[in-house]
Every structure is written in C-alpha cells, then in structure tokens.
C-alpha cells in the first residue's frame, strides 16, 4: 500500500510518505508521535490536508485528484485502543454489526463467523452483555467484529496497551493466530518493541510525525535512532525456535535456533506446534571475552561483535552467534572488556531468563 499524508497537529505536522507491502506492518514510536492520527487518516476518520492513500491498487484518498472515499466504503476494519464495543448491544450483535456489508468478495472466500470464534476462542461469550467482558475479552470481540466485516485491511491501535502484563502475554498469541489464519494485511500501532518483534514483518518507526526509519524489524531496530526510542526495559530479543525435547524433572526444554545452535529454556510440555517464540531481554545477556567455567547459566554461545552503538552511557551491542543477539551493557563494561567490532565473545544466558510466548 501507498501512504502519503500531511496533517497539521497541535505541536507538529504529521508528514509521512511511504509505500510498503507486508502481512503485518508495525507502526512503532513513542506516545504522542502521531500514530493514532495516521490510522484515523487511513480509515477516513480524519481529514488530510494533502496526500494520497492507496490500498491494494485502489485509491481511497487523493487530494490531487479530489478523491475521498467515505469510511464506510473503505472496507477497513479498525480496532481502536479501547476496543470501542457498542455498550448497548450484546457480544453477538457487536460481532455481526459489520457482517452484512456487501464487499464484492465471493461467498466462498468470505470469512465465516465460526472460524473467527474458534480462532479467538470467544464462542462462549456471544450472549453476554458487552459491559460484562474483561479487557482481554473485549479486545478479542472487537477484533472479531472487525474481521467479520470482511475488510481488505485491518488497523489495530495498540490493542494491548490497556491490558496488564499477564493479559498481554495471553492476547499476543491470538494476534499471531489472526495473522496466520486470515489473509488480511494488518497495520499494527504499538510502542512495545516486543510486539513489533513478535508480530510484524515490516516496521515503520515514527517520531514527532516523521518517519525515522523503516524495514524488517530486526534490521530497522539496529540503528542508533531506533535504540534511542526503545523504552526502558523493552529491549528484547525475540527468536522463533524449533522444539527439540523437554525434561520436566530438570526443569528445562531444549530448543533449536534457526541457525542451528541449541538453547535451554524453562520447561514447557511438548507443544502441538513445534515452532515457538522465545524472548530474552537485552539486559539479561552477559558478555564474556573468555569461555566461562563453573557457572550456573546453561547457555554459552560463541559469537562475534557486529555493531556497538552508544547512547547516553548505554551501549547496545549486537553479537552474531548464528542468529543475532542484542545485549545492552554500560559504557564502563564495554571499556573494561575492550569490546570493538569483530571481537570474539561468549554470550551467557540463564535458562530462566528466557520467556516463552
């Protein structure tokens, strides 16, 4: 899709010009950087001064050609941050609110309600009043409602922002399932790096209404600009790994990284689907210049320092060890170890520092 728009805001102008084509595109940036405004503009809920919006070949807006397709004809499913369910209607009526719209999609290709209900596991909520839903349930219902309107694009505005951490961990897999089950491109607004790395295959980083950088998440996030934007405690490594074996007594599970290295992560029963995602914070990875002995950590991987980016006394070090790892150190530690690019190092990671998704 092509997106080019200029919108004056209170403190700055939103001025973005990009074109991209991905299954899930994340718009990543701090609060107040114009992310929601951008989604509103795509959905047609906010006027654009000058610009053009084009989705899968059809122009929804063009100031030059005088085109402005009204929101109800855009065929865009929007899940706002606060879920936006209609409080006076039941869950069923909410979900079916947009289902009747004529989309020109042939009957056989249409997404069926039973399918959506089973993917999101909300079949049991249908007859509940919306006011009796928990935050996580409300988000899933809002997602179902948007999907069943048979949209050609889904917009998700920080769907996890209002949930507490344990709920976030529960809802994230649902979003991944929506991505994998339905062929709807998604634009996903977030200020969480974990969500970008878990869900997106393209990221647009914006700040103060401008595009800072864009690209495949892991690569785009490597730049100094990007590091500056990563909120405290959110610098994380996310890996897709293959399950090897589990040992309940030892409390650990062996998994294999894409490049072939094996890691120990906390115990989990053998999953049905043998690929899973694991994460480890950049603050939980130790770097040693010699192979350590007599330590409790089970994961020691040899690697080579690729990049070193220092910002305000914090240093983000990327290490190639088959896959690429981020470790965040203090400037003092980097100096003590004499770390420079191409230094051979060992990455040390505790089993229990890994988290499973």
């Amino acid at each position, binding site marked *: 899709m092509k997106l080019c728009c200029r919108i004056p805001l209170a403190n700055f102008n939103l001025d973005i010009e990009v074109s991209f084509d991905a299954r899930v595109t994340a718009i990543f940036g701090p609060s107040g950087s114009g992310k929601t405004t951008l989604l509103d503009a795509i959905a047609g*809920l906010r006027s654009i001064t000058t610009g053009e919006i084009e989705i899968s070949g059809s122009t929804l807006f063009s100031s030059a050609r005088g085109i402005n397709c009204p*929101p*109800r004809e855009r*065929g*865009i499913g929007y899940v706002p941050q606060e879920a936006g369910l209609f409080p006076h209607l039941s869950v069923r009526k909410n979900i079916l609110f947009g289902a*009747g*719209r004529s989309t020109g999609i042939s009957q056989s290709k249409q997404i069926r309600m039973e399918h959506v209900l089973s993917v999101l596991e909300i079949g049991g909520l249908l007859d509940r009043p919306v006011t009796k839903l928990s935050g996580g349930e409300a988000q899933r219902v809002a997602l179902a409602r*948007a999907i069943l309107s048979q949209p050609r694009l889904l917009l998700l505005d920080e769907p996890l922002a209002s949930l507490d951490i344990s709920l976030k961990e529960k809802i994230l897999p649902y979003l991944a399932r929506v991505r994998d089950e339905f062929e709807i491109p998604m634009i996903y607004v977030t200020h969480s790096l974990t969500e970008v790395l878990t869900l997106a295959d393209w990221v647009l980083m914006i700040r103060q209404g401008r595009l800072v950088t864009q690209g495949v998440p892991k690569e785009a996030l490597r730049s100094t600009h990007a590091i500056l934007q990563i909120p405290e405690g959110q610098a994380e490594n996310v890996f897709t790994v293959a399950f090897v074996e589990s040992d309940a007594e030892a409390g650990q599970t062996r998994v294999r990284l894409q490049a072939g290295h094996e890691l120990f992560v906390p115990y989990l029963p053998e999953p049905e689907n043998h690929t899973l995602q694991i994460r480890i914070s950049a603050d939980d990875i130790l770097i040693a210049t010699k192979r350590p002995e007599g330590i409790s950590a089970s994961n020691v991987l040899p690697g080579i320092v690729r990049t070193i980016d220092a910002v305000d006394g914090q240093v983000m070090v990327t290490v190639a060890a088959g896959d690429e790892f981020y470790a965040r150190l203090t400037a003092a530690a980097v100096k003590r170890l004499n770390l420079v690019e191409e230094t051979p190092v060992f990455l040390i990671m505790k089993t229990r520092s890994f988290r499973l998704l």
Partner: protein
Amino acid sequence: MLFFSFETWQITLFSLAVGLASTLLILPFGIAFAWLFARKDWPLKSVVETLVLLPLVMPPVSTGLILLKIFGRRSPLGQWLYERGIEIVFNWKGVLIAMSVMSFPLLVRSVRTSFAEVNPRLEQIAATLGASPLRIFFVITIPLAYKGIVAGALLAFSRALGEFGATILLAGNIPGETQTLSLAIYSFVQLGKDPEAFTLLGITVALAFIFVWCSEWLLRSSKKA
C-alpha cells in the same frame, strides 16, 4: 363518585392530552435540532441555538404576544391559515402551540446533552464497519442517548402542563375549551373558589413530582451506565 368533580376531571384530562400532544409534536424536531447542535458545525449555529433557547428565559407573556402576532388573523400566516379553515387563536390549537414553543428549549437542551455524551468514536467505528449515517443514528446514537431523550421529553411535558403566560395570550382562558390546570387555578382563586383551586393545586404538585422524579431517575441511571 369519581373522586373529583366532572369539571376537575375535564380540566386535568384536557391539560394532559394537549400536553402529551405538544410533547409528541416537538419530539422529532427537538431530536433533530439537538443532534445538529451536538454533532455538527454550521454557520450561525450559535445564533440559532440562542433563538431556540430564548423562550426559556423570556417572559412567557412576551412569547405569547409574539405568537399572537404571528398566528392572529391579521398576520399573513394567520390569514393564510384562516382561509384554509384553520384557526389557532382562542381554541385548543393555541394551547398546543403555546405549550410546544414554551417546552421546546427544555427538550432540546436535555437531548443535546445526552447526544454530546455519546462517544463519537463509537459512531466512527460503526462507519468503518460499513454503517450508513442513518443506521448509525438509529442503531448507535439514539439507543445510547435514549434515557436523556425520555428524560427531556418528561421535562418538556411537565413544562407544558405548567404553561400559563403564553397560553393565556394565545388561547385565552375559556372554560371547557382552552382552560388548562394552571389557567383554572388562576380563575378559581380570582373567583374566591379556594377549595376547587386547592384540589387542582394538589393535582399539579402530584403530577410535577412524578415527572421530575422519573426524569431525574433516568438521567442518574444513564450517567451510571
């Protein structure tokens, strides 16, 4: 036998009937204006808003005089209506018009507030789901604002029942024809018929209490929801 005299019944039922008719008459217009005030921006909006609210603060007698000048047989509109066999002044239609004009601002104010409390984000989301403006209005906006609408209608109805100044100028105070509760109380007191006046007084207090209580209860419960 009927608890009250025939006359009392007649006056009470006449007031209730015309009051109800005036409320039903202004309801669609009230909702339309309230929506235009709450949701749209248009030129001269504040002027129109002020004009609509004017009867709320103007002396009712002044409003009555204006209405008399508009609907009287010597005015162009009165003349035009008279030629078609419709006379407003000094009959029940005058009562209806006076009540409608006087209670309209209360209805509009109350409904406007309840529309303003409906989250516009919900209307926007409904639009992205393919709903037409008409469907959004009837399926989202009205149901979410209905308590405020009913409360406003009750308030307007109570105001209509209490109408005096504009009614007496436009419709006169003709027993059996245009005499409402308020007008009758005034007449009975003037004629020294205190017991009759007190009976009507009791009825008006009881009715007003019920309506205001219901209206407040509705507004409170809509805030909670």
